[in-house]
């Protein structure tokens, strides 16, 4: 098998494996994806035109998830000025951005993608998309590789760097324990401005469209997260530029420069991130299945080489021994002709003893006979 054939084989094998592996990350049948995967799933609509940057959501998140107390109190709104990122101790942060000269606040947290990139990157299968819309992390199998943090297009997962034993990845859980109790997520409940609207994702898209339609001057005609990165459970509405030209509806290329000011990337495409990597990453478990063949082959080759070496050695020894025996016989015959039978017997005996003594000495030094 040459290199080209091997790669072709690996490629086709990985596709077959990927079809099997994707079942964990995407509940839909392997093949063409249709959105949303869970039509009943929940989401949150973040209307940045309403957000005032009061940090009540951060406070609520901190309390309901029992996170460590921050250095600065939540009433200090000056921290919004710096572009903070979510971390293991802050699952959500509100940052201040300047959009067309006006301050706009945006809450950052896990977007709970429809088809999460973190799940596609995790070989320990710690991440799962739940039917309620949340992306859950189960750290029991986590090896701390932090591939999820690299895979996430929103830089949402944080890592417990200061945890010496068993550090885990931490991120917004969509307040799963509260959802299960029929309660709103902590941040949504705390928001005084309804900048966070909780509901079924399908309803929220309608709500967002209605808001844009009823106030076209106010809103940028783009629901961030409806299709971005394959669609996310948390979606963002942004204010329009009052002075600039009107951005045509649902145009990622033209809405891009506007949303970029709000730290949102419209270049993620509408394809789930995972779809780009399932093929390649699906091949990873298959490598494990190669191991018996690989190591078995190496073992067999070593064994065979050893056997060949031993056979060669034995052959040489046998030949040498045959030579010695022939020489002894020739010498004994010569003695028998010249000296008589008695002398020949004595000579044979002496030579046999001498050879035996030499063999014994060699055995004592560990040499093979």
């Amino acid at each position: 098998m040459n290199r080209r054939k091997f790669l072709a084989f690996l490629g086709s094998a990985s596709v077959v494996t990927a079809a099997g592996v994707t079942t964990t990350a995407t509940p839909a049948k392997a093949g063409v994806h249709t959105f949303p995967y869970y039509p009943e799933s929940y989401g949150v609509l973040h209307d940045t035109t309403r957000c005032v940057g009061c940090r009540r959501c951060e406070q609520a998140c901190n309390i309901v998830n029992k996170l460590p107390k921050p250095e600065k109190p939540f009433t200090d709104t000056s921290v919004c000025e710096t572009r903070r990122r979510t971390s293991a101790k802050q699952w959500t942060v509100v940052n201040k951005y300047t959009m067309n000269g006006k301050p706009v606040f945006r809450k950052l947290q896990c977007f709970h993608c429809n088809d999460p990139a973190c799940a596609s990157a995790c070989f320990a299968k710690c991440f799962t998309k739940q039917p309620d819309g949340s992306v859950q992390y189960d750290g029991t199998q986590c090896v701390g590789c932090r591939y999820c943090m690299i895979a996430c297009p929103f830089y949402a997962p944080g890592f417990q760097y200061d945890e010496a034993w068993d550090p885990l990845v931490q991120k917004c859980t969509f307040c799963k324990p509260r959802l299960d109790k029929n309660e709103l997520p902590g941040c949504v409940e705390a928001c005084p401005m309804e900048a966070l609207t909780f509901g079924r994702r399908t309803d929220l898209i309608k709500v967002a469209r209605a808001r844009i339609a009823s106030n076209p001057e106010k809103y940028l005609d783009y629901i961030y997260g409806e299709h971005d990165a394959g669609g996310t459970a948390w979606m963002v509405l942004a204010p329009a530029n009052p002075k600039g030209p009107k951005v045509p509806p649902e145009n990622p290329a033209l809405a891009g420069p506007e949303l970029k000011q709000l730290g949102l990337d419209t270049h993620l495409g509408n394809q789930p991130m995972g779809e780009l990597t399932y093929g390649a990453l699906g091949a990873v478990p298959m490598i494990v299945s190669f191991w018996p063949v690989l190591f078995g082959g190496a073992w067999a080759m070593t064994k065979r080489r050893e056997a060949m070496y031993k056979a060669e050695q034995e052959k040489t020894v046998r030949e040498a021994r045959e030579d010695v025996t022939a020489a002894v016989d020739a010498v004994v015959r010569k003695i028998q002709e010249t000296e008589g039978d008695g002398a020949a017997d004595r000579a044979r005996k002496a030579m046999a003893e001498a050879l035996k003594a030499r063999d014994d000495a060699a055995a004592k030094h560990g040499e093979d006979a």
Partner: protein
Amino acid sequence: MRNGTKMLLLTAIVLAGAACLLFRGAEGTNAAPALAATDSGAPAAMVLFPVSNQPNSGAMGMKPVVFNHKLHESTVQECESCHHTGDPVACSSCHTVEGKKDGNFVTLDRAMHADNIIQRKGARTPQSCVSCHEKRYTERRECSGCHAVVTPKRDAAWCAVCHTGVEGMSATQTADALAGKMDPDVNEALAQQAVDSKKPVQYADPGAMALKVKIGTLVDKYEANVFNHARHVNSIMKRISGDKLAQAFHSTRETLCQTCHHHSPASVTPPKCVSCHAPGIDKQNPGRPPLKAAYHLQCMGCHDGMNVKRPAKTDCTGCHKERVAQKGGSK
């Protein structure tokens, strides 16, 4: 700060009183004919009829508009704001119902109503009646509070503010006007009569409304907020009291109430906010803000529009007093 405002108000009242005393004679003469000659020499008022390219299209879709030229002249100051070519001719000499080459095929309808006019570079951007009015109510502080929350609905009542028609105009006069054969003096007389007969709407009496409203939605965390309803209503009414544009478009006595008391039929005894805005999540109306947000969106929306700096939006205790622990409030 508040004392300063009071002082200013007092001074203003005193000055206004003095002015009244001084110019009483002049005012007396002004009262009967509201319109005197304009500075520019244009008719003080005119009835605007749709002008068609056809000699007599016969049909007239909308009632004619009575246009108070004198009032607009004194408010706008620059003739070129409306007469954008620099030539003070009638709008309909270039902009007809169908549009014609002189007016770059901009129809009369667009010339009067367009609100999406592209900004011209290096030349004067023309304005329509609607775009200029819109600019006035979004740019001036006394208007921009409510109008940050409320965008006027373009319904029949909105059209009827300008398209009033002229009472007592005979059929032959109408036919003449449509054919463009009406005598300008007759036109002016008719318009003046319509302008004189027009009286601004008397707003609902703030004294008859709730003086203070106690809002206790957040009593688990904060003391109930006592909203000074009368002060808010009075302040808005006072600020726009002399404004002719507001008088014309705030066409019912409850119009002002409808910024906050929206979506329910106009009334001086409107339903409470909680009748529509449930305290928790409303499954039937996922887009409707819950009670807490409804309050905050209305209050802050208006304050934002008016550029009210204090209390800051993030300062909860600016409006809600922190609940004292020993009073037994849960944390």
